[in-house]
């Protein structure tokens, strides 16, 4: 098999796709999180400021989903096809929530009536919560494995099979993580009373996340042994969960000192490390079959041709600096606390 710098192309793509989805989780993570807190804010002004904190960036954040999805499609079409068709209902609910969230942000400020704004507030917040939860649910199913039979076909049945106990746990963990991340983001963008309010909410968010994360971790160790195999075989890998725990612990420590900029760095790092954890647990598999290990989907049987992977790697190498460049530019333009003007939502 051809390699680049001693690493084969499917592995490179595993890293690319993983990197893109991590970027997505970090970026849309804080705006889903901010959305999840929306109904906790009672005043119209507060809600507007919170909304405008993500106003200029949420759309750019969502691009990472589009690119990640495209990269998965291009790099591992078998994984893309099997995962998406097996998880049909959660993906459809995800799409509909994504639509509701986008139009809530867009349409909320277009009318002054109280009922209009309240309706969009509710739709915005619930869809943000659902999106974070559903991402976690899909992740839980991927980690746990699904009933893939011959010909990559999903053999599961039932409308709500995706909503199993483990997936629910990972769903809540993700929601808690994003709510923590989002609360810190809002703290960076607000002042005065809203800032104080977010500081109290952040504590609740952190407790929620830690409880959910603790339960999920325990359940994983006890009931899903295949996820810790790699760590038993290669003890050096224990550094990843260790770093994750340290990173998580740093968030409340920094938050209590009101160093929110650093706390945000660590909530970002936490998301990244949790993605690394998932990657270590899975590699080189992508999707485990609960029917027979024969039907596992891994980076080799799912990958596109080497030529395609090479071409796409060039495209990514050209594209990523561009994307990071204008992402940086946008964040710089809108840095600092939110200022509402006539173009705001």
């Amino acid at each position, binding site marked *: 098999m051809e390699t680049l710098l001693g690493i084969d192309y499917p592995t490179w793509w595993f890293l690319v796709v993983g990197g893109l989805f991590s970027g997505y989780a970090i970026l849309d993570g804080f705006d889903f999180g901010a959305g999840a807190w929306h109904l906790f804010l009672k005043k119209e002004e507060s809600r507007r400021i919170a909304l405008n904190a993500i106003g200029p960036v949420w759309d750019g954040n969502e691009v990472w989903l589009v690119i990640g999805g495209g990269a998965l499609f291009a790099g591992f079409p078998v994984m893309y096809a099997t995962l998406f068709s097996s998880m049909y209902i959660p993906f459809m609910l995800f799409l509909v929530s994504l639509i509701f969230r986008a139009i809530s942000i867009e349409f909320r*400020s277009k009318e002054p009536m109280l009922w209009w704004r309240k309706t969009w507030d509710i739709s915005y917040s619930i869809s943000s919560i659902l999106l974070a939860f559903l991402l976690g649910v899909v992740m839980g199913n991927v980690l746990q494995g699904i009933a893939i039979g011959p010909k990559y076909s999903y053999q599961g049945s039932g409308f709500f099979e995706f909503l199993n106990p483990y997936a629910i746990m990972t769903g809540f963990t993700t929601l808690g993580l994003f709510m923590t991340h989002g609360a810190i983001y809002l703290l960076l963008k607000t002042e005065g009373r809203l800032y104080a309010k977010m500081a109290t909410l952040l504590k609740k968010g952190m407790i929620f996340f830690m409880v959910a994360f603790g339960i999920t971790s325990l359940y994983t160790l006890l009931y899903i042994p295949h996820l810790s195999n790699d760590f038993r075989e290669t003890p050096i890998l224990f550094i990843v969960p260790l770093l994750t725990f340290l990173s998580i612990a740093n968030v409340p420590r920094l938050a209590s000192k009101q160093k929110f900029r650093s706390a945000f760095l660590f909530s970002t790092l936490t998301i990244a490390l949790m993605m690394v954890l998932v990657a270590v647990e899975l590699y080189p598999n992508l999707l485990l079959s609960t029917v027979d290990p024969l039907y596992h989907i891994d980076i080799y049987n799912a990958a596109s041709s080497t030529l395609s992977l090479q071409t796409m790697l060039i495209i990514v190498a050209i594209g990523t600096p561009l994307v990071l460049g*204008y992402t940086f530019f946008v964040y710089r333009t809108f840095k600092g606390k939110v200022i509402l003007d006539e173009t705001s939502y």
Partner: protein
Amino acid sequence: METEILARIQFAFTIAFHYIYPPLSIGLGLLMVVFESMYIKTKKLEYHTLAKFWTKIFALTFGIGVVTGIVMEFEFGTNWAVYSRYVGDIFGSALAAEGIFAFALESGFLGILLFGWNRVKPWVHLVSTIGVFLGSMFSAVWIVVANSWQQTPSGYHIVGEGFEARAEITDFWAMVFNPSSVDRLTHVWLGAFLSGAFLVLSVHAYYLVKGKYVTISKTAFKIALVVATVFSLGQLFTGHKSAEGVAVNQPAKLAALEGHFDENGPADMYLFGWVDKENETVSGLKIPGGLSFLLEYDFDAPVKGLNAFKPENRPGQVNAVFQFYHIMVSIGMALIALTLLASFYWWRGTLFDKKWLLWIFVFAAILPQIANQVGWFAAEMGRQPWVVYGLLRTSDAFSQAVTDNQIMFSLVLFLLVYTLLFILFIYLLNKKIKHGPFDTHEDHDRPNTKGIATAVIGK
């Protein structure tokens, strides 16, 4: 069978709805770039007002375009898993390139386009507007490339057998520049410019007949009229090139477009008609040998008809393909007539006295939209029974793991959500039009008028 039909209906519905918006975004993007450049060049405030006004309407179309577009990307995997595995190596690359080169550019600069008026220098803002416009143009490039590869596959080979069979890239640039991509892309771009230009024409024609915002509307109308006239005429060429390509690459589709059954005889061209598939006849008004003439400049030149293909390799809905195609062509001709007439009156200096003509423009905004829709329907239904022409049948391509009930559920969901979305879109579009191009200082679209300072301090 049931699952296949439901999956097709869902795809058709979601893509048709989606396709209301991207062409508007591309077309309005072009006009925004023109307005803003004129402002930077002339420093006349009216151009600035126009750029800002149309940016607000653009924001509406862009937002809906993005979210309904993500649905499309996911639907390949959810509903067309076999297809996705088969073409991932090729189609996936085009889609990923779209995301990284086009979509990121578009959405990255969108924040500055919408919220940056007071934050960056005018030229930086113009660069952002151009960035968003170019992003939407590039989006069209990769999507049309991907779709064109389905119509005229090239630069690939097939590896594997049975369910493992899939198309792999052998030559990236041959895939990108497959035989139909350039012709179809220009046709799509121009169609998008027209939908944007005609919306601008419609809104400003409405202001003119109502006697509101007259000066600024005359300026906008003239600019949009130039765009609309040039590109209406341009569609003649891109359309003709596309048809020539179809004749060479997808003869069965061409035969369906004109309802031409005769195995290898001269082909007529219809102005309108009705196809009777059973009796293999078309009744309508025709130019005998017209299609032969268009393709070969000879009224008697033989053209392969539907009967030259095995029944299982012909498009199933010949009459529908025929009708959609003819509606598109008729609208194209109508747009040329309309824009030339308006240009003529402009030259005579009487354009803005012709109320009846302005009224036609008020309603004409719908025409390019219809043409874009039916054009795609003709192209996609004419490709049947193949999802990838000559390689993979639609009936083999859908997700086996997804049940009828699941699709029924999602289809109903999309029907409800999109209906709501469309009602809101029309409502808000209407509101923005009624509000007019000028910012009002009472700032009545917010309940809070306490001012920026209090909002920030939070007291």
